[in-house]
């Protein structure tokens, strides 16, 4: 209990002390708060009196009491006045609305009471009823931020604020004031940036702001032109975008205004004396730039241009130029002058130096050439820069004798040729040419014959005598005189056939030539090229090569692609030029411009022979490497031949079938094929051969017939016996008209083979009788059970004397006994028609197989009814009258497929059937066996 009492006492003391510091009455309220505004600077200046040094300041927008600032500041009192002063820069123009300020003193956590409000009225008070915008005509740097406010007139509505045509977000500051904030402003346009405040009805008011840059000038340089004064210049910097007259950049040099520069036209400032140090100040409302330069006068001499430049002595190869100086001090200056000559497509500079230089001799000029000359000079020592240039001045040099022309003699025949010379250039003619003089002499003549030619002639024809060489001399003439003579002896003509000619292909539009050096080439070589095959007015070109060289690249605009040139190298020595080597070449091969000519196609049997003529050399445009032959189909070309030898111009297309063909022949160079020539041909049968074949065949046949006829005639007796044996008369025993009784023979319903034995024949015969197809169709059921062919069926039987009678008797009731026999030996001796097979056979003896020609109808008519009536009882049955639905069908079918033995020793030839074909083996067999 005693411990808690002191603790409680201490706590009570502490509480009592703290309550005393929070007592508001302890810090006095600041007194005499006054406000002063600087509207253009948007600054508010506060003054008050107080013993404290720390104060809380609060600033409000009066009307809506929005807090603009709440800040604690430390402000010491002015010792002389005892007043505290503090300024505040408002982001908003102070005119926009009224501002109210109050302050209180602070001592750490202790504060005084707030002072009474002090208010600075804005322009939105009722007394100012019109519309206004602030700030007006402000000038700011690019990228700065600004706040604009629009005070709407009384009884007017507010709609929007546009900055540079763009609507901005507006904030209401009071009953009539709206504000926008613009950040990072871009530079103004032609005049200024417009800020427009509008109502629904139109523009209320507005303001402009000038947004630009501070000066950006740089590189101040001072120099002297007269060796006394200074002329300073600099580079203008970036556009400040400040167009108003009063906001343009102002320049001062060493403290003096630069009037010329301030007018904005030039950026130069003159100084009457050479100070050695200069300071240029460039200033505009947004900033200032200071540039300095320092130099000695002799280091910055920039001479003026010389005056009165004249050419006092102009010759063919040089000229003297004089001038004077407008500044007397230059005469004592060591200077260097540069003369720049332009003439005859050349630009030449010459430098001359001396003290006060005012005259030079121009060397290296060419006669009769127009030159323009300009002169500029500089200080020789401590050269700064070339001075101003004068001119240009014109100089025309005088003429001189021309150079000797470059000549060559081109021989186009054994005794004819042309003297050629190249036109002289301006550099060679030394003046306008009047013409040429051509002289010639031979070894026999000890004199020169001279001919004058106009200046447009560059050739002269010559004719050689066989006896001697001719020497030519050519000279050019101009008003200044005659050139030295160019002489040459005519070379010996060599045709291509007389020399070895090589092929040559160019590169890069020219020819690379090289040859074996020639020991006697004392005057070098001449390379001549001319289009091959050219005659008369040929473009002959040549190039002379020193004797030390044995190669050259012929590169000339005269060379054309696709043109064949004959290039010759001649050796020049004391005598006539000697041909050393020759080529035919193309600078660039092209495809032939023309196709092969006279293409023809000829049929040779099944082959086609194509032939054509070569392309003319002018149209070849390259070395012809061969020909390709195409067969043109409907849609494409089929390559059928490639002839790599261009000399061969024949091609045989082999083994073609009959029809129409179209062939295309194309010549090709290394550049490709030409468009091709086309020929069409229609392959037809060879009518001559056909006729010959037919005639030969007919002839052979005719011969055979003759031979056969002769043979038959010679062997007519044998033929008669072989084919027409004597037929004995019939022996009729008994009643022929009535059957002798039933025959025990059942011939096959298909066909019957009647084999009769002919006594005269010693060998056995087999006779086959084809079965008519009509019968076969009626016996389809039967055919299904046989292995024999359906259209022809034979009943084979071995013919024998001993089996004849047995066979007849056995076959009547047991034909099945022969079914399946495979031992039958068959000899085909003849075929008997079904009609003839209808002939019935009675008992033994000869019986005609057919009705006689005398009365075949009656017996047959009589026979058929009898047969039909007695068919069930009679052994003999006519083949044509079989009835398949008869009870005997079963028996017939039982004998199908088995040969039926019929004895026959006689040909079954009808008497009236001589036209019937006879088996050849019979008479042939007899022939071979020697029977007649």
């Amino acid at each position: 209990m005693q411990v808690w009492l002191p603790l409680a006492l201490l706590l009570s003391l502490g509480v009592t002390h703290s309550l005393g510091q929070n007592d508001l009455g302890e810090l006095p309220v600041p007194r005499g708060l006054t406000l002063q505004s600087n509207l253009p600077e948007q600054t508010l200046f506060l003054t008050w009196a107080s013993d404290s040094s720390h104060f809380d300041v609060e600033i409000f927008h009066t009307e809506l009491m929005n807090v603009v600032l709440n800040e604690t500041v430390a402000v010491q009192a002015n010792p002389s006045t005892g007043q505290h002063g503090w300024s505040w820069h408002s982001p908003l123009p102070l005119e926009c609305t009224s501002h109210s300020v109050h302050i209180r003193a602070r001592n750490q956590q202790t504060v005084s009471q707030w002072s009474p409000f002090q208010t600075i009225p804005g322009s939105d008070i009722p007394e100012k009823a019109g519309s206004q915008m602030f700030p007006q005509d402000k000038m700011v740097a690019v990228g700065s931020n600004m706040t604009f406010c629009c005070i709407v007139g009384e009884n007017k509505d507010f709609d929007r604020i546009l900055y540079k045509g763009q609507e901005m977000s507006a904030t209401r500051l009071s009953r009539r004031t709206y504000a926008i904030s613009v950040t990072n402003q871009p530079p103004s346009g032609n005049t200024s940036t417009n800020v427009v405040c509008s109502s629904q009805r139109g523009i209320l008011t507005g303001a402009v702001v000038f947004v630009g840059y501070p000066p950006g000038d740089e590189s101040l340089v001072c120099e002297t032109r007269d060796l006394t004064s200074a002329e300073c210049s600099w580079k203008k910097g970036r556009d400040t975008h400040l167009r108003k007259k009063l906001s343009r950049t102002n320049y001062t040099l060493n403290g003096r205004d630069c009037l010329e520069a301030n007018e904005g036209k030039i950026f130069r400032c003159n100084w009457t004396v050479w100070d050695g140090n200069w300071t240029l100040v460039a200033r505009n409302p947004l900033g200032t730039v200071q540039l300095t330069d320092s130099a000695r006068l002799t280091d910055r001499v920039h001479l003026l241009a010389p005056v009165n430049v004249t050419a006092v002595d102009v010759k063919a190869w040089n000229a003297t130029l004089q001038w004077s100086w407008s500044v007397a001090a230059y005469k004592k200056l060591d200077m260097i002058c540069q003369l720049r000559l332009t003439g005859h497509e050349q630009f030449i500079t010459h430098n001359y130096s001396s003290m006060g230089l005012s005259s030079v001799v121009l060397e290296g000029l060419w006669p009769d050439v127009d030159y323009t000359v300009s002169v500029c000079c500089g200080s020789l020592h401590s050269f700064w820069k070339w001075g101003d240039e004068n001119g240009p001045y014109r100089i025309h040099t005088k003429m001189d004798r021309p150079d000797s022309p470059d000549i060559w003699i081109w021989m186009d025949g054994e005794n004819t040729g042309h003297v050629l010379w190249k036109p002289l250039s301006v550099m060679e003619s030394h003046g306008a040419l009047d013409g040429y003089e051509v002289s010639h002499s031979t070894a026999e003549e000890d004199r020169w014959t001279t001919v004058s030619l106009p200046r447009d002639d560059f050739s002269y024809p010559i004719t050689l005598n066989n006896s001697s060489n001719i020497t030519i001399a050519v000279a050019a003439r101009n008003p200044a005189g005659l050139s030295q003579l160019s002489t040459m002896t005519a070379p010996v003509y060599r045709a291509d056939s007389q020399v070895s000619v090589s092929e040559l292909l160019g590169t890069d539009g020219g020819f690379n030539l090289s040859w074996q050096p020639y020991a006697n080439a004392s005057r070098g070589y001449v390379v001549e090229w001319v289009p091959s095959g050219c005659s008369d007015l040929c473009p002959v070109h040549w190039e002379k090569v020193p004797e030390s060289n044995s190669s050259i690249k012929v590169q000339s605009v005269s060379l054309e692609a696709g043109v064949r040139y004959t290039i010759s190298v001649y050796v020049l020595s004391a005598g006539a030029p000697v041909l050393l080597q020759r080529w035919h070449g193309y600078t660039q091969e092209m495809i032939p411009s023309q196709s092969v000519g006279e293409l023809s196609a000829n049929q040779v049997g099944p082959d086609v022979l194509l032939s054509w003529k070569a392309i003319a050399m002018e149209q070849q445009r390259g070395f012809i490497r061969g020909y390709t032959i195409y067969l043109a189909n409907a849609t494409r070309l089929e390559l059928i031949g490639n002839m790599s030898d261009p000399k061969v111009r024949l091609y045989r297309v082999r083994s073609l079938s009959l029809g129409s063909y179209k062939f295309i022949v194309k010549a090709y160079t290394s550049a490709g094929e030409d468009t091709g020539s086309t020929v069409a041909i229609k392959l037809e049968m060879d009518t001559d051969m056909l006729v010959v074949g037919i005639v030969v065949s007919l002839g052979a046949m005719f011969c055979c017939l003759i031979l056969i006829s002769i043979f038959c005639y010679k062997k007519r007796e044998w033929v008669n016996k072989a084919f027409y044996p004597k037929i004995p008369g019939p022996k009729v025993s008994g009643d022929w008209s009535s059957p002798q009784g039933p025959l025990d023979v059942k011939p096959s319903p298909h066909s019957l083979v009647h084999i009769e034995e002919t006594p005269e024949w010693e060998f056995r015969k087999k006779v086959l009788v084809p079965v008519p197809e009509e019968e076969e169709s009626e016996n389809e059921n039967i055919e299904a059970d046989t292995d024999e062919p359906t259209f022809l069926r034979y009943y084979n039987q071995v013919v024998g004397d001993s089996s004849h009678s047995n066979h007849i008797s056995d076959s009547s009731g047991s034909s099945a006994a022969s079914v399946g026999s495979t031992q039958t030996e068959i000899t085909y001796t003849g075929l008997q028609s079904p009609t003839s097979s209808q002939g019935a056979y009675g008992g033994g003896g000869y019986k005609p197989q057919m009705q006689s020609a005398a009365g075949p109808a009656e017996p047959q008519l009589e026979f058929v009814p009898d047969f039909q009536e007695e068919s069930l009882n009679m052994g003999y049955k006519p083949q044509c009258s079989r009835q398949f639905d008869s009870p005997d069908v079963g028996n017939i079918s039982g004998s199908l497929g088995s040969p039926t033995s019929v004895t026959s020793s006689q040909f079954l030839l009808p008497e009236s059937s001589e036209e019937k074909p006879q088996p050849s083996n019979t008479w042939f067999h007899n022939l071979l066996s020697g029977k007649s």
Partner: protein
Amino acid sequence: MDRTAELDASVPGRSAAALARLLHRDCTRLLELYKERESFLSHHVPEGERLVTLALCPEALTTAEQVGHVRSALRRCKELLECLITREVEEMGKELEGEYESLRMTVKDRLGHFVHSTGALLENGEDGCPPSPNFECAEGQDEVEGSGSFAAKLWTYRVLLELIHWTDSACQTLHLFHTEKQGQQQLL
């Protein structure tokens, strides 16, 4: 045809009417150029009264009096234009030499010529309007709300509108004047 042309050429007011038409075309072009420079004026229609009003001149009864009326108005317009040019030169200098700058000088010169030529037409005392008081550049600009460059732009715009209005009036009036004079000569 030639006779008609000669007669037409000798009728008073013909050249003045042609000059008025030319002026109207020039002033229209001048306003276009100014709108190109100050695009915010493209659709602006100024409020308030005209800058040039001739309250002292009674309502014209005759065509000749109407000619005198428009002559007085254009004389005032010329003064306004001279004031405008002076102000712009003071502000921007003479360095700007675009089409607008050259055309405004042309219009000023032609306005002077127009005032002179119409004055010759009215030498017989048909101009019933009293002479206008001397014009001061400061006058008129107070009518534009606000101050500074923006107000000057609005004022320039209004001056150019006045020029177009009064040159158009001059065209119509002089055409009527010319037609009447031509009719009178044909009657004679």
